[in-house]
C-alpha cells in the first residue's frame, strides 16, 4: 500500500476526510500503464484520478506538462480547475493548473504552447488541435499522465475515437505516458478499458463501492395514462405534488419538443408559482447558463430538461429525478438517477412516468431491469474510418510522417486494433488523392510523398483549413429565434423546421408560445402570443430507439400468464389483446389484418426499435406497391409498424422473405435521405467538405453547394468510393438500423402468425393515435410541390406574365 505523504494526510485530516478505498487503490496502482476507475457520482472520483498527479508534482521537480485532463465538456474543465485549486492552494503545492478549450483566448493559448502548465485541462477537440502543431513533440515530451473523465460518455461517440487516436500519438511523443479513465457504471467495463489501454496492454479496473440501490418506482396517478402520445399531461397534478414534497426535482424528457410542451402545461397548472425552469439544447446559451446558475444556487424547485443536463453541472441539491416517457435505455436511466442525491451512501430516488398505456409496460420492464442490475448497450463497431482520415490529416499538419510508423501507432488504439493495412491504405489514399477510381487529380494532390518516402502536405497553407475543421461533433444548421425588435435570442430551431413555418404559425420555445413573423438575416423573428395551444414544436426531436435488451424483456413479460406488477388498467388491456388476437412472441412475427375507416390495415409487431421499424415500414410498403396492393402510408413505433392501403394483404409471409427484404433494402437505401445526411457527416469529418461557416450562411449565399450533389455524383460515377462505404456502414447501424431488422429476421426465421380480424385490436389501438405518419410517395415530391405551386399561382391570380 502506498500511504499518503504527510502533507496530504494532514490536509485530509484537517477536512475530517478519510481516503476512500478506491482512491487508495488508485494510488497503489498509480504506476500502471492503464487504469480505469468506475465510481458513482459523489464518490470522490475526480480527486481519485488526480491524487497521484498532485503527489508526483508536490516536490516541484517536474518541468513542463505532467498531466493532461480531458473531459467531454468545456464547462467541466472549468469546474475541475476550480475544484483542484482548493487542495493545491491549501497545501501550497507548486503546481500550475490551466484549462484550454474553444473559449480560451488566443494569447493564453500561445503562451500555453510556449510554456505549458503542469496540469492542463482540455477537451478532445482542443487536444487534437494541439497535436496538429509543429511544436507538439516539444509540448508533450515530458507528459506523464492523461486522465479521461466521463469516459463512458465519450466512448459511445466518435469524439472518443478521435481522443483515443490522439492518445496513440501522445504515447509516441511521451513513451512513459500512463492512461487513466474515470467512468460511471456501465454494462461492459472491459470494453471501455480495452479502448483506453494502449493495445495490447492490459487495463486495471478499479470498482468503487456503487452505494445502495436506487429507489425507483412508477408514479401512481389517479388518472389513467392515455392510449397514445408523449405529453404525459395527465400526470401534471401528481408531478407538481412530488415537486412540492422535494427540494429540487429534475424532470427528464426524451425529446426537446416534449420538454417544451410539458413545461408549458406545468406552468398552466402551477398555481402556487413554484420556481420551475427549463433546460434543453435548443435554448440559447445565456438562458441555459441562467438556469444552471439558479439550480446550483438552490433557487429552483424543479427543472424540466432533456439529456443536455446529463453532464457537467453540479447536481448538488437534487433529491428527486422524474423520468417522463419510457426511458428506452436502462443504462442511461441508471446513470441519471445515480447523479441525484449527491450524498454518497444515500439511495437516490426516482420516479418513472409513462406517457401512454404501452409505456406502462415499458416502464415496468425498465424498473425490473434496473433492479436486476441488467444494463443495456450495443457493442461498438470497429473504429470509424472518417475519424481516421481526419487523424491522418491532423498528423500531416504537424509535419512529415512515415506511413508504416503511423499505421503501427494506430493499431495500438483498441477500436482500430483490427484495422487492416489495406483499409489504412484506403484512408491514406483518400487523404492524399481523394481516392477516386476513374479520374485523378494529377497536379493537385493534398498529400505528397517526398523522395525519402515521407508524406507531407502539398501546400502547407492547407493546414489552416484542416485545423478549422477539426472535430467530430455534427452541428445541425440552426437559426436563432428572437422577439421582433429585441436583440436577445430566445433559442434556436433547426433550419429545416424554420423552413416549414409560415407567418402566423405558433410554436413553443423556452416555455412560451410565440408567433412566427418573418426570417430576417438568418434569424427567426417572432412575437409573443397568449395562446394556450401552439402548433407543435417539432424541432430537434431526437427519438431514441428502445434498446434490444429492453425489447426482449417486454416480450418476456408478454409471455407471462398474468401481470401482477402492472396496474389494472394495463393488465386488462393486455388480457383483451390475448382474448381477441394474441400477444407478440419473441421468436415469431405477429401480423394482424383488419379493416378500419374504409382502409385495409396490417399491424406488424417486430419489436426492433423505432428506427428499424420505420425502415421496415418503408421496405414493406415498397414491396406492397410493387405487388399492386396500393399502400397509402404507415406509422412506426418501437414495437410495431402499422400500414394502411387500398387492398388487403392476404398472405403476408412473402413480404418477410429475408432475401427479398435485403434486395429491396439495397435499392431503397441509395436514394434515402438518411444516407445523404449520414454522408454529409462522414464527409465533413473526413475533410472532403468543410463545415458551414457562420459568415457564409449569414449572407444567404451558400459557401459551398449542397453535399447531396456530391453524394449523388459519387453514387453515379464512383459507387465503391470510401466515403460511400463508410456512409453505408454507418447508416446500417444508426438511423436506418438495418442490423436490428436482420436480428428480427433471424430471431423469427420465417415464423409468421397472421391473424385476420374484423376490427382494430387492443394492442394496435395506440398506433392510430401515433404522430409521425409517413405517406407513401407514389408520385413523389414533385407532386406535392406542383399542387402547392398551382395553389399559390391561382391565389396570386397569375398564370404567367
Amino acid at each position, binding site marked *: 500500500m502506498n500511504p499518503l505523504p504527510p502533507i496530504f494526510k494532514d490536509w485530509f485530516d484537517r477536512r475530517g476526510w478519510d481516503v476512500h478505498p478506491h482512491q487508495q487503490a488508485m494510488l497503489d496502482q498509480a504506476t500502471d500503464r492503464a487504469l480505469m476507475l468506475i465510481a458513482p457520482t459523489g464518490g470522490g472520483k475526480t480527486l481519485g484520478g488526480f491524487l497521484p498527479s498532485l503527489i508526483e508534482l508536490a516536490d516541484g521537480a517536474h518541468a513542463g506538462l505532467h498531466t493532461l485532463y480531458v473531459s467531454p465538456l468545456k464547462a467541466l474543465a472549468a469546474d475541475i480547475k476550480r475544484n483542484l485549486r482548493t487542495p493545491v492552494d491549501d497545501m501550497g503545492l507548486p503546481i500550475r493548473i490551466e484549462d484550454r478549450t474553444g473559449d480560451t483566448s488566443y494569447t493564453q493559448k500561445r503562451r500555453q504552447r510556449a510554456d505549458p502548465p503542469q496540469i492542463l485541462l482540455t477537451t478532445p477537440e482542443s487536444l487534437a488541435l494541439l497535436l496538429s502543431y509543429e511544436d507538439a513533440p516539444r509540448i508533450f515530451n515530458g507528459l506523464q499522465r492523461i486522465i479521461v473523465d466521463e469516459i463512458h460518455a465519450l466512448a459511445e461517440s466518435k469524439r472518443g475515437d478521435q481522443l483515443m487516436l490522439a492518445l496513440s500519438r501522445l504515447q509516441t511523443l511521451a513513451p512513459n505516458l500512463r492512461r487513466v479513465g474515470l467512468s460511471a457504471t456501465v454494462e461492459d467495463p472491459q470494453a471501455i478499458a480495452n479502448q483506453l489501454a494502449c493495445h495490447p496492454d492490459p487495463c486495471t479496473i478499479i470498482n468503487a463501492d456503487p452505494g445502495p440501490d436506487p429507489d425507483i418506482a412508477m408514479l401512481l396517478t389517479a388518472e389513467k395514462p392515455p392510449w397514445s402520445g408523449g405529453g404525459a399531461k395527465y400526470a401534471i397534478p401528481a408531478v407538481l405534488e412530488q415537486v412540492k414534497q422535494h427540494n429540487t426535482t429534475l424532470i427528464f424528457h426524451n425529446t426537446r419538443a416534449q420538454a417544451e410542451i410539458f413545461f408549458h402545461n406545468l406552468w398552466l397548472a402551477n398555481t402556487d408559482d413554484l420556481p420551475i425552469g427549463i433546460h434543453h439544447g435548443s435554448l440559447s446559451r445565456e438562458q441555459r447558463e441562467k438556469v444552471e446558475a439558479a439550480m446550483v444556487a438552490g433557487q429552483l424547485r424543479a427543472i424540466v430538461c432533456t439529456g443536455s443536463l446529463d453532464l457537467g453541472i453540479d447536481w448538488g441539491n437534487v433529491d428527486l429525478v422524474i423520468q417522463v416517457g419510457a426511458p428506452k435505455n436502462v443504462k442511461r436511466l441508471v446513470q441519471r438517477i445515480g447523479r441525484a442525491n449527491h450524498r454518497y451512501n444515500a439511495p437516490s430516488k426516482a420516479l418513472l412516468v409513462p406517457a401512454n398505456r404501452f409505456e406502462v409496460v415499458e416502464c415496468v420492464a425498465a424498473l425490473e431491469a434496473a433492479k436486476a442490475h441488467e444494463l443495456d448497450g450495443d457493442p461498438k463497431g470497429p473504429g470509424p474510418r472518417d475519424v481516421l482520415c481526419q487523424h491522418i490529416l491532423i498528423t500531416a499538419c504537424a509535419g512529415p510522417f512515415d506511413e508504416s510508423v503511423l499505421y503501427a501507432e494506430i493499431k495500438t488504439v483498441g477500436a482500430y486494433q483490427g484495422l487492416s493495412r489495406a483499409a489504412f491504405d484506403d484512408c491514406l489514399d483518400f487523404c492524399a488523392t481523394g481516392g477516386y477510381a476513374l479520374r485523378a487529380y494529377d497536379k493537385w494532390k*493534398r498529400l505528397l510523398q517526398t523522395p525519402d518516402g515521407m508524406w507531407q502536405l502539398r501546400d502547407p497553407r492547407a493546414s489552416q483549413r484542416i485545423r478549422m475543421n477539426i472535430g467530430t461533433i455534427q452541428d445541425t444548421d440552426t437559426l436563432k429565434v428572437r422577439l421582433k425588435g429585441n436583440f436577445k435570442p430566445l433559442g434556436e430551431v433547426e433550419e429545416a423546421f424554420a423552413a416549414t413555418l409560415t407567418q402566423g404559425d405558433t410554436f413553443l420555445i423556452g416555455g412560451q408560445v410565440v408567433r412566427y413573423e418573418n426570417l430576417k438575416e438568418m434569424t427567426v423573428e417572432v412575437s409573443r402570443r397568449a395562446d394556450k395551444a401552439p402548433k407543435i414544436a417539432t424541432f430537434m426531436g431526437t427519438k431514441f430507439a428502445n434498446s434490444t435488451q429492453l425489447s426482449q424483456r417486454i416480450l418476456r413479460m408478454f409471455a407471462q400468464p398474468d401481470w401482477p406488477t402492472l396496474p389494472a388498467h394495463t393488465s386488462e388491456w393486455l388480457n383483451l389483446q390475448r382474448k381477441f388476437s394474441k400477444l407478440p412472441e419473441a421468436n415469431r412475427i405477429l401480423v394482424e389484418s383488419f379493416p378500419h375507416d374504409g382502409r385495409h390495415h396490417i399491424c406488424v409487431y417486430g419489436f426492433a426499435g423505432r428506427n428499424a421499424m420505420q425502415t421496415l415500414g418503408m421496405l414493406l410498403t415498397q414491396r406492397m406497391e410493387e405487388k399492386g396492393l396500393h399502400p397509402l402510408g404507415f406509422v412506426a413505433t418501437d414495437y410495431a409498424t402499422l400500414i394502411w392501403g387500398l387492398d388487403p394483404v392476404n398472405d403476408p409471409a412473402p413480404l418477410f422473405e429475408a432475401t427479398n427484404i435485403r434486395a429491396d433494402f439495397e435499392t431503397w437505401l441509395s436514394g434515402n435521405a438518411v444516407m445523404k445526411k449520414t454522408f454529409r457527416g462522414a464527409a465533413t469529418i473526413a475533410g472532403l467538405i468543410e463545415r458551414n461557416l457562420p459568415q457564409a450562411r449569414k449572407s444567404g449565399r451558400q459557401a459551398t453547394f449542397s453535399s447531396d450533389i456530391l453524394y449523388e455524383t459519387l453514387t453515379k460515377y464512383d459507387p465503391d468510393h470510401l466515403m460511400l462505404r463508410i456512409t453505408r456502414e454507418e447508416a446500417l447501424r444508426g438511423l436506418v438500423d438495418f442490423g436490428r431488422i436482420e436480428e428480427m429476421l433471424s430471431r423469427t426465421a420465417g415464423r409468421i402468425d397472421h391473424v385476420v380480424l374484423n376490427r382494430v385490436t387492443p394492442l394496435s389501438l395506440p398506433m392510430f393515435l401515433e404522430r409521425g405518419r409517413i405517406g407513401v410517395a407514389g408520385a413523389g415530391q414533385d407532386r406535392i*410541390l*406542383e399542387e402547392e405551386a398551382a395553389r399559390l*399561382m391561382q391565389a396570386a391570380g*397569375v398564370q404567367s*406574365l
Partner: protein
Amino acid sequence: MNGYYFSFCGTNCVAMPSGALYLPDNSLLCVSDLHLGKSERIARRSGRMLPPYEVQQTLQKLDDDLTMTTPESVVCLGDSFDDLDAAAQLGDDMRLWLAGMQAGRNWVWIEGNHDPGPIELGGTHRREMRIGSLTLRHIATDASAEVSGHYHPKHRLAGRSRPAFLYDKDRMIMPAYGAYTGGLASNAPVLRALFGTSPIAVMTGHKAIPVPTGNG
C-alpha cells in the same frame, strides 16, 4: 418534355427542368454558369479533392438537353469555366465530347466574371448578344428584355430549395447549370433589388414548376 412554356418580352420560352432555357422559335438553347473545372480549382486552391466527375456530369446533362431540343444555336451565358486555368486543364476526353456537341452548331461563349478571356475551344466569344427582342449577357443591368445568369438563384417551397429561373416582365435570371454550383436565395436583397415587381420563380428538378416568389 417537362418544361414550363411561357412568353417573355414577346419571345416564346421554355424553362427546362435541367435549368436550360430553350427558345423554340429561334432554335436556340441557352445555359448559364456551367462552372466547368470547379473541382479542379477547389483542389488547387484548398487541397480538398471533391469527386472529379463534375465536368462529366454537367456535359452529360447538356448532351441530353441537346438531344431533346436539337437546337441550331447554343449560348453559354458566362462563367462556363470556373477560371481560365480550369479551362486549360480540361481533359482531352472532355474536350472531344464538347467538340462533338459543337459540331454543326452555332456555339457562343458569353464572357463571365470567372472566364473573361477567350478560350481555346471551338465557338465564338462575345460580351453579350441579341436574339430578336432579347439581350443575353452574364450579369444583369437595368436594361429591359434581358436574360442573364451570374447569381445562381434558388427558390424554396414546401421545405425544399431548388435552383430556379426568376423572371418578371423586364428581366430573367437563369439558374446555374453546372453540377457543382451553390445558390443564392431568391429573396436575397441583391435579387430583390433587381426586380421591380415580385418575380415568378420556375423551380427546376424532374419538372419545371412555376411559383410566385412573393418578394415585393
